[in-house]
């Protein structure tokens, strides 16, 4: 049901593109799809601060740009600080009547590396200071721009160029860092997870984040065929499977209260998700089972939180 709704409701989205075609992302890149949807959701009154990473590189080879809205790239780890400066500067200029008052959204965008690893401190600082801004993490579960190295957001078992499969190790040996929970722990008004395979849900969340005063954090799972070693035409399906298997549940945390955006009484077997990705090719049945158990446990815990309204 929800699936069908999502398919048709896509036509209700604006036809305007603020992120132009002609960018250099790989075929089947869901990260760039997420960016395009975010840009659609926010419209023209936005200033984008983008961290170093795939999305920066594919969209801004001097002298070209894919951006039809003001866009800013400074460095890898400081995007939250830059976007907070954008917000502060606009606020001061409007208060001092040097530019006309109007709502301009300060949007920060970074990959999982730029968020969960090197940019975590700047993000925490910006969330704690309470700037009126949106921070979006496009999570493709590794440092893709530099050649598929592991991040703290890479899932357990995934092989990357720095968590390779060897004679004694089976890919990533740590579990994915729970970034949304870290963001929520800052007691900010809005945290959400999203995935471009559910475009309406994603757009609605971004719009909600824009309407809320104070910091909002949205964590977007972004399938990366190049890094995941999956077929480009499967990106949308893989995003759906990530949600349907419970690997990446879609939820919101509004003023500290969790609620699931869609619930599945019965999760799909995780194998369906894993078998389509070369990065998991080496996983044994035991390891897959271990992952499935953990995913189920975390999903149940999340459901419980949502049920209790905390």
């Amino acid at each position, binding site marked *: 049901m929800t699936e069908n709704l999502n398919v048709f409701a896509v036509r209700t989205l604006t036809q305007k593109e603020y992120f132009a075609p002609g960018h250099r992302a790989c075929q089947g890149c869901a990260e760039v799809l997420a960016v395009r949807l975010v840009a659609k959701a926010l419209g023209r009154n936005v200033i984008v601060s983008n961290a170093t990473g795939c999305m920066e590189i594919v969209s801004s080879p001097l002298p070209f740009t894919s951006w039809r809205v*003001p866009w800013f790239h*400074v460095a890898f780890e400081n995007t939250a600080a830059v976007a907070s400066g954008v917000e502060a500067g606009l606020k001061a200029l409007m208060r001092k009547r040097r530019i006309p008052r109007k709502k301009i959204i300060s949007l920060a965008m970074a990959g999982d590396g730029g968020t969960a690893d090197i940019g975590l401190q*700047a993000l925490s600082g910006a969330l704690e200071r309470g700037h009126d801004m949106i921070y979006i993490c496009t999570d493709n579960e590794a440092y893709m721009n530099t050649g598929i190295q592991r991040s703290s957001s890479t899932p357990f078992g995934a092989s990357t160029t720095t968590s390779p499969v060897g004679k004694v190790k089976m890919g990533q040996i740590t579990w994915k860092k729970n970034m949304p929970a870290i963001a929520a722990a800052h007691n900010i008004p809005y945290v959400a997870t999203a995935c471009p395979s559910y475009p309406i849900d994603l757009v609605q969340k971004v719009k909600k984040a824009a309407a809320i005063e104070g910091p909002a954090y949205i964590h977007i799972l972004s399938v990366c065929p190049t890094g995941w070693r999956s077929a480009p035409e499967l990106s949308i399906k893989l995003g759906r499977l990530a949600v349907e298997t419970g690997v990446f549940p879609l939820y919101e945390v509004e003023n500290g209260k969790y609620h699931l955006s869609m619930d599945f009484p019965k999760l799909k077997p995780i194998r369906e998700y894993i078998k389509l990705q070369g990065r998991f090719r080496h996983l044994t049945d035991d390891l897959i089972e271990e992952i499935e158990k953990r995913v189920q446990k975390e999903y149940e815990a999340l459901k419980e939180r949502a049920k209790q309204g905390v």
Partner: protein
Amino acid sequence: MGKRVGMEVSIAAAEAVKQCNVDVVSAYPITPQTHIVEHLSEIVANGELDAEFFCVESEHSALSVCVGSEAVGARSFTCTSAQGLALLSEITYIVSGLRLPIVMIVANRTLSAPLSIWNDHSDAMMIRDCGWIQYFVENGQEVYDHVFISYRTAEDREVLFPAIINMDGFTLSHVIEPIELIEQEKIDQFLSPYQPLYSLHPDHPVTMGAFALPSIFAETKKAQEVALCSSMPKILEVWKAFGDLTGRYYRPIETYQAEGADTLLITMGSFGETASVAVDQMRAEGRSVGLVKIRLWRPFPFDDFKNAVKGAKHLVVIDRAVSVGGPKGPVASEVKSALYGMEGHPAIYDFVAGISGRDVAPIDFIKMVDKAKIEIEEGNQEGYELYGVRE
């Protein structure tokens, strides 16, 4: 004439930032810069300055916040020292590449290790090539004055470069000096509100901070270098305008008793005042010694410097940072490259003195001049010594 009051130099610096009607202040505390941030936070808390003030979680973010605010057209300020400067150094190169006219005061302090909170120029030398306009000031009045001078110069559309005011930690930041304050009306006349050439705003979307392939990178760097070097006339023009306003005229190179002197001391920063006392003493003894002070470190005033030292036989350069394993002191290397190929150029003797705040008194300058004279006369034309080290 403005009011002359005794005040701590850091307080004077903060007052100047207030008088510039800065829009965003973002900083992180580190000795000896702390008093500037503390006083600025008081100023904002008292409503004396209408600015967004953030004490952020690191220096890296302090400058990054300023990058964001400056890019939307807000006049922004930060300040730091040593480890803080090292931490934000990554962003300094980006700010100049983006041509954002942020002003930063650096209360110069020694870089670790060993950890030391005291003053030298090792921090400033680390970011020597970051592409900012870089001043080294000599006293409290110069710190105060250069906040106005820096904003007006940096924001000029023919310049558009960030500026650093280097002031010696403790020896300047923590001392009380008589400062001639400038009336606000005069400041408003001297410094108009910032009108950015390009800024981030939805009404005129631009892309800032695009990446460059090798096929275009060199062109962008060349453009940057040409722009920084050709901002020299503007730097001079702003100093001139400031002089006309206040009677205090500044030059890239300042000389004292240098005319016709056989030996010239070369200093940068607060050493200039102590060295001038030493010069007076040596002059009283009938010795032909003068002083050349470098106020503008970047863009380096090669021509002015050459003119200032023309005719001298010995130059005694006093560096305040060690270039470990490199071509000795950083100021001396600059001096040597400035004079390379100049006919009959003077012998250059380089001392690194007063690192990590070790006291250097007038007598020490005299001793260094004496030592250099003996060495040079014995044929050591390019000597180097870390002065006053116990062995």
